[in-house]
C-alpha cells in the first residue's frame, strides 16, 4: 500500500525521478552550440566563450553550494568554515600543479603505447592529493563538533577557517603561495586550458555538476543519508535508538568537504589561479546565501541559488553601479521574508496552491469557451 510513496529502486526509476535535472544538463550542453548558431562566433571565441565562462562559474559554485547544503540542509550542521575545504582543494591543486608537476614531468615520462600520458598521470595524482586534503579538513571540522553545539560550534568553525585563511595569506610563504596576491599562472596542459579550450572546461564542469548532483542525491537517500537527516532532526533521540551522532556528523563533514575540495580544485583550473578569497569567510557566506535563496535541504535549491547569485554578480554592477550590494541585500531580505524556505523549498510546500489556481483559471477559461 505504501509502495507508491517509496523511492523506487532501479536505473529507469532513477532517470525518471531526475528527468528535470537531466533535461537541464542536456539543454546546458546544447546551449553553446545554440549561441554559436545565433551569433556565428566559434565555441572557443567571442560571445559563445563569454557565456560559457559565466556558466562554468555557476556550475562550480552550484556544486560548492550543494556540498554546503549537505551539511546545513541535511545534517543540520551550521558551519562557517566550509570555505576551508573549497580553498584547501584549490590551493592543493594550484600548489602541486605549479611547483611539483613541472619537476615530475621533467624527470619522468609515462608512455601508454606511443601516447605520452604523463600529464594525465600527474593530474590524477594531484586530484588524489586534493581528495586526501579534503578528507583531512573534513575530519578536523568533525572533531570540533564532538563537544560543541550550535553557536559555539559555528564560531569555532569560523576560527578554524580563519586560521587557514591567515596561513595562506602569510607573507612567510610568499615564494610558494603568493600570500595576498594568490597563486597565478598555473601551468595547465593545453587541452585543459580555459582560455584556449573553453568548451572542454565547459563540458568538464557540466559533467562535474551532473555527477556530483546525482551522487549527492543518491547519498541523501541512502541509509547513511537518512541517519544524517536524523541528526538534524533530533540528536538525543538518534543517540537513544543506537546511532552515534559523532560518526554520522563526521561522514557528513567528510563527504561535504570532498565535494567542496573538488569544486575548489576545478575553480582553480578555471581561473588558472588560487587566491586567498577562496578560503575566506566571504566564500562560505556566499554558499550560505545561495543555499538559503534556493532552499535548504533540497539539493537542487542551491543550484538555483548559485544561478541567481551568478546573474546578480554579472548584471547588478552594470545596472546599479557601486551600490549593487544594497540592492542585493534588499532582494535577499525579500526572498527570506516571502520565500522562507527558499525558491525550491517554498515551491515544494506551497506549489500546490499555484497549481490549484492555475487549474481554476483553466476551468474558468473552459467554462467561458463552453458558454460562448
Amino acid at each position, binding site marked *: 500500500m505504501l509502495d507508491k510513496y517509496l523511492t523506487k529502486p532501479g536505473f529507469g526509476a532513477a532517470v525518471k525521478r531526475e528527468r528535470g535535472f537531466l533535461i537541464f544538463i542536456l539543454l546546458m550542453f546544447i546551449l553553446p552550440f545554440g549561441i554559436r548558431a545565433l551569433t556565428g562566433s566559434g565555441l572557443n571565441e567571442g560571445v559563445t566563450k563569454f557565456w560559457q565562462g559565466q556558466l562554468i562559474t555557476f556550475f562550480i559554485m552550484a556544486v560548492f553550494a550543494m556540498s554546503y547544503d549537505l551539511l546545513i540542509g541535511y545534517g543540520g550542521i551550521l558551519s562557517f568554515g566550509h570555505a576551508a575545504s573549497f580553498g584547501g582543494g584549490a590551493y592543493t591543486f594550484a600548489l602541486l600543479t605549479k611547483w611539483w608537476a613541472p619537476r615530475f614531468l621533467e624527470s619522468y615520462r609515462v608512455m601508454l603505447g606511443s601516447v605520452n600520458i604523463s600529464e594525465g598521470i600527474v593530474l590524477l595524482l594531484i586530484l588524489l592529493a586534493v581528495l586526501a586534503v579534503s578528507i583531512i579538513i573534513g575530519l578536523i571540522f568533525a572533531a570540533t563538533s564532538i563537544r560543541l553545539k550550535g553557536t559555539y560550534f559555528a564560531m569555532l568553525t569560523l576560527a578554524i577557517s580563519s586560521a587557514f585563511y591567515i596561513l595562506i595569506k602569510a607573507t612567510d610563504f610568499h615564494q610558494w603561495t603568493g600570500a595576498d596576491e594568490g597563486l597565478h599562472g598555473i601551468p595547465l596542459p593545453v587541452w585543459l586550458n580555459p582560455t584556449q579550450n573553453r568548451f572542454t572546461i565547459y563540458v568538464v564542469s557540466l559533467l562535474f555538476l551532473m555527477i556530483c548532483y546525482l551522487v549527492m542525491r543518491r547519498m541523501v537517500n*541512502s541509509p*547513511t543519508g537518512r541517519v544524517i537527516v536524523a541528526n538534524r532532526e533530533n540528536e538525543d533521540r538518534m543517540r537513544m535508538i543506537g546511532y552515534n551522532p559523532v560518526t554520522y556528523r563526521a561522514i557528513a563533514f567528510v563527504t561535504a568537504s570532498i565535494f567542496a575540495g573538488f569544486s575548489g580544485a576545478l575553480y582553480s583550473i578555471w581561473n588558472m589561479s588560487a587566491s586567498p578569497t577562496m578560503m575566506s569567510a566571504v566564500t562560505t557566506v556566499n554558499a550560505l546565501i545561495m543555499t538559503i535563496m534556493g532552499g535548504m535541504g533540497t539539493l537542487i535549491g542551491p543550484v538555483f541559488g548559485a544561478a541567481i547569485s551568478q546573474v546578480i554578480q554579472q548584471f547588478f554592477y552594470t545596472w546599479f553601479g557601486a551600490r549593487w550590494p544594497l540592492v542585493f541585500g534588499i532582494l535577499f531580505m525579500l526572498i527570506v521574508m516571502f520565500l522562507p524556505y527558499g525558491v525550491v523549498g517554498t515551491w515544494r510546500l506551497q506549489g500546490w496552491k499555484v497549481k490549484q489556481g492555475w487549474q481554476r483559471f483553466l476551468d474558468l477559461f473552459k467554462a467561458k469557451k463552453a458558454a460562448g
Partner: protein
Amino acid sequence: MTSDIILEAVGLSKVFGGLVAVDNVSIQIRRQSMHAIIGPNGAGKTTLFNLLSGVMPPTTGQVLYKSQDITHISPQKRAALGIGRSYQITNIFPNLTVLENIRLAAQATGKDNFRMFKLADSFRGYIDRAEGVIDTVGLTGRELVIARNLPHGEKRKLELGIMIACDPELLLFDEPTAGMSSEQVPELINIINKVVQQKERTAILVEHRMDMVMSISDTITVMNQGRILAEGSPHEIANNRQVQTAYLGDLYGELA
C-alpha cells in the same frame, strides 16, 4: 549463574550542585516483570531513569545489565545492548514522516547504516518491520503524516513505536501517558501490555497515574526525596502507611 535479575543498580547517587537528586538507591529489576517507579514530584524518578538509560553519569554507584557493568557506557551502546527508552517530553524526529521515524529506528538494529550508495527504501526488511510496529502501536493509516503534525496522543504512540522498533529487551518508559487525556490512557496501556508480552520483554515504568500503575505493574518502587521509600506488589504498596503519608501528606493524616 544466569540470574533472574536483568538490571541492577547498586548504591546509585546523583548530586547536582548541592541537591542530592538520587541518594544511594539500589534497585533490582526482575526479568519479564513490569516494574513501576512512583513518587511525588521531585522524588528523583526521572533522574534515576536518566542514570539507568545512560543520559547522565552517576556521581557514585554502579548500573549492571545482565551482570555486566554498564555504568559508563554511552546511550547508543546501551541501545545496541537492548535497552530502549521513551521520553516524558515527546522526543521524535519532527519533520520526518511517521514511517521514516520508525524506519530509522528499525534500521539502527541492522548492518546497513553505512551503505552510502544504495537507496534506503530498497531495504524492504526495515520498512516491513516499521509497518509491523506501526500496526502494533495503532498508527495504521498515519504512516505518511509528518510527525510534528500528529495530535499529542499519537505522538506518544509514535514515541513508543520508535522505541519498540529497536527491538529492545528492556523497555524504559518515562511517563508514557504524560499529557494524555483520561480517555486515551486505556488504549496506551493496552499497547504497552501488548508490547511487553509480545516478546517477553521487561519494562520499567515511571508514572504519575496511580490507577494505571496499580493495574499493570508487578512490582512498585516508591521514591521520595531521592530515596527508596518502599518496594513491593501493588497491593502491599496500596496499604503502606508511609507511602500514603508521602503522597497525601498531612492532609491525609488529619483526615484519617
